[in-house]
């Protein structure tokens, strides 16, 4: 029942692109721009997010295995970028920023009056130190800013920090402004932390964020409010309990019993198990990426590299049924354009989808295509699809897909593989069909580029980074290369052209949309992100989004 694949954390990759083309946010705007009533402080929230392991009580923000427990809680980014609201920005440690005209340099104005939780003053020096540390110790440069993004220098001057790049750097804004937690120079420049900033344990993290770790044990992290937090009166919630759940079962039991209020994993049969238990139990799981059938497009796989076969599969499958039965209605159906709706509706080309005939299943067309290729229900094409053992919902979806493909003349064998065996075969291109979802990013560009950009591919037998189906189309490559420097409207246009290629070439076949699992209990805690007010990605494993939740929620009983 472990569902790690659904924990799609959209921290996005170190090599991707632009969110917004307007280069400036207004100076000194309040971090929470919407007018908001204030609340009294008090109350406790308990997070139920299955980790599969006990807590190591390390909080080093440069350690990718543990930084989800410190980013947002303790360490803060410069600017928070909200994926669910067209990349809306909230200034955090930077009160504003200004791009140069060619987007090769950016100047952040650093917020005044911020203190580290040990009482020392925070300054622009700390920001410059954090980025320069990543240059000195490449293992801490998780997003490859210095090596991949062309970062040339970071310097502080007064309350300003200037970053210069060798090329247009707008594509990396999401990474360096939103994903990097700023660390204190006075801690990271002395002792063990300075000697090994990448492996230092950081057991008592000192940050600028709304919470402090107090205390941590292998079973539970308790966060208590930082009394000197720079947003006066916040956080409202004074304590966060984060127990280590080793398995979904106990994590879900605690949610159903109301012992935990903030859920972040899949609950099977959620209606009976969770929603019906209390009128205060709610769920809202926004879709963020696609789950797809990856056909092997390499000529060494003659069947799946044949366009007619892929078109037939894309026409035959009933995505709504897969979402409803395979995923128990907890994930929405995807569509052949590869754009996740409704999250990224702005980019979605519905007209093109209908014009291409993929807006609803068409079994007759699929049968025709297959008979053109020489196959029928009595003389079926035998194909094998690989998937990961233990992803029971994927198994259910695939069983349904197998049923739907049988009448058009495809005999599908489902091959459940252990995670790492599966990885080997997926990365090296050793499959006919594979069932998989990419990590995605803050706009559809990220996911589509991962899947379709030819530089993310590799010859069969070598590991591809994302383009596992081995799609190569110079026109599509060119579109991706233009995207970085394009303005907002042109970017939407470019994505629509990529969607056209998805409809024409069927490089992959999206089936359902992965969601950010989120359940919340409102009996005491109020102010959760909702469908109507998606102020951030709601699951607790989203960094640094969790901070936004923690800054909004408040306790009824404390008022």
């Amino acid at each position: 029942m472990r569902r790690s694949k659904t924990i799609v954390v959209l921290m996005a990759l170190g090599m991707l692109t632009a969110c917004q083309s307007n280069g400036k946010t207004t100076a000194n705007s309040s971090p929470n721009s919407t007018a908001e009533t204030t609340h009294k402080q008090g109350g406790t929230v308990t997070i139920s997010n299955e980790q599969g392991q006990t807590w190591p009580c390390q909080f080093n923000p440069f350690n990718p295995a543990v930084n989800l427990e410190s980013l947002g809680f303790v360490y803060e980014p410069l600017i928070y970028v909200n994926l669910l609201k067209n990349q809306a920005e909230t200034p955090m440690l930077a009160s504003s920023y200004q791009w140069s005209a060619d987007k090769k340099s950016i100047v952040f104005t650093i917020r005044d009056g911020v203190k580290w939780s040990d009482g020392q003053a925070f300054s622009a020096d700390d920001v410059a130190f954090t980025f320069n540390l990543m240059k000195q110790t490449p293992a801490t440069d998780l997003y490859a800013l210095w090596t991949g993004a062309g970062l040339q220098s970071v310097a502080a001057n007064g309350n300003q920090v200037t970053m210069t790049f060798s090329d247009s750097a707008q594509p990396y804004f999401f990474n360096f402004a939103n994903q990097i937690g700023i660390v204190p120079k006075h801690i990271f420049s002395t002792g063990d932390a300075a000697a090994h900033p990448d492996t230092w344990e950081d057991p008592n993290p000192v940050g600028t964020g709304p919470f402090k770790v107090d205390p941590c044990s292998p079973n539970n992290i308790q966060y208590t409010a930082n009394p000197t937090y720079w947003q006066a009166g916040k956080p409202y919630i004074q304590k966060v309990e984060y127990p280590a759940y080793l398995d979904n079962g106990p994590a879900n039991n605690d949610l159903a019993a109301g012992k935990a209020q903030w859920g972040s994993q899949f609950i099977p049969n959620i209606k009976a198990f969770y929603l019906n238990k209390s009128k205060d139990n709610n769920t809202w799981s926004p879709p963020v990426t696609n789950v797809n059938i990856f056909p092997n497009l390499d000529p060494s796989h003659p069947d799946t590299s044949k366009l007619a076969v892929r078109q037939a599969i894309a026409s035959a499958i009933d995505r709504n049924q897969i979402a409803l039965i395979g995923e128990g209605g907890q994930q929405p159906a995807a569509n052949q354009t590869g754009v996740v709706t409704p999250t990224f509706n702005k980019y979605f080309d519905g007209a093109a989808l209908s014009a291409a005939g993929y807006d609803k299943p068409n079994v007759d067309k699929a049968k025709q295509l297959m008979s053109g290729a020489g196959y029928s229900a009595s003389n079926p094409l035998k194909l094998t699809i690989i998937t990961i053992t233990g992803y029971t919902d994927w198994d259910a979806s695939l069983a349904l897909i197998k049923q739907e493909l049988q009448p058009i003349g495809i005999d599908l064998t489902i091959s459940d593989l252990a995670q790492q065996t599966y990885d080997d075969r997926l990365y090296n291109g050793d499959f006919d069909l594979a069932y998989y979802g990419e990590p995605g990013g803050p706009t559809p560009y990220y996911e589509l580029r991962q899947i379709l950009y030819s530089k993310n591919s590799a010859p069969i037998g070598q590991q591809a980074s994302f383009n596992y189906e081995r799609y190569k189309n110079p026109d599509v490559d060119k579109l991706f290369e233009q995207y970085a420097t394009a303005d907002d409207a042109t970017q939407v246009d470019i994505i629509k052209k990529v969607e056209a290629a998805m409809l024409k070439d069927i490089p992959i076949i999206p089936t359902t949309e992965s969601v950010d699992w989120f359940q919340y209990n409102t009996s005491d805690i109020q102010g959760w992100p909702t469908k109507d007010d998606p102020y951030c990605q709601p699951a607790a494993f989203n960094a640094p989004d969790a901070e936004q939740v923690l800054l909004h929620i408040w306790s009824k009983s404390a008022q």
Partner: protein
Amino acid sequence: MRYLLRRLGFFVVTLWAALTLNFFIPRMMPGNPVQALRDRTHNKLSPAALQEMLTSYGYKPNQNWFVAYLDYLGNMFTGRWGVSIGGSSLGEPVTKIIGQALPWTLGLVGLATVIGFVLGTLAGIVAGWRRGSRLDAILPSVMVVTSALPYFLVGLLLILFFSIWINGFLPSDFNYDPSIPPGFSTAFIGDVLSHGLLPALTIVITSVGGWVLTMRNNMITTLAEDYVRMGRAKGLTNRRIMFNYAARNAFLPNLSGFAMSVGFVISGAILVEYVFNYQGVGYLLYNSVQNTDYPLMQVLFMLFTVAVLVSVLLCDFATAWLDPRARAKG
């Protein structure tokens, strides 16, 4: 003396063979630590960055296997066990991780094994003594069933009965309630006991049957011996005959069986710890294999091997001491 030396030699050779297998088998499994971390971080970070990260924790992806093997053997004996390179414990010293988990497993699985053994042996003595009674008719047949039940099934049923149906009467997960500060307070100790009850019960239920059956059968064989009849003829009390004459001798095979099972305590009942979210070494092993965490995995395997071998060795020594025939043959 020759017997003891031979047993010691056997111990050393077996230990070396097991350590060698422990080194090579995990490395021949599909996947590697970088790939496991890539899965764990959901493919968001580049494999090159992850490899760099793991290298700074001491992972050497391109090291010659033979050199790595010699390093490994040396490190196992000198206790330089390194840091974990997988999962959320990335970067934590292996000794610390195991130090946190081991007491829980020794407490839970160790105690439950002893309780199961004592209960089973006593019940076996009584059942064998009252051969043909109603107790003897029911007990062995029930025990045949319970000893064949798998751990996880019993665990899940107990959770269903005591935790879900009786609405959280007994906790079904964790080793203690994190909201109670650990310490020598009655609240904390009571909490630890209540958290250990269901998993301990699972182990007792599944293990007690084996002890009952062997003890009962040994008793019946022993009761037919002449010295038991002799005791009766002398007019000794039943109690004395039962425990001092019959059970004492019938107990020997059970004792060596127990020595073996103590060796397995350290590996924890992996399934029990998994079902009950109980954070002992069995659970650690499961996780380290999932994460291809070589340093943690190989130390755990070594501890399990050593525990089994040492208890077998002790059992050999005990047999030599108790049974002159073993010494003579050696």
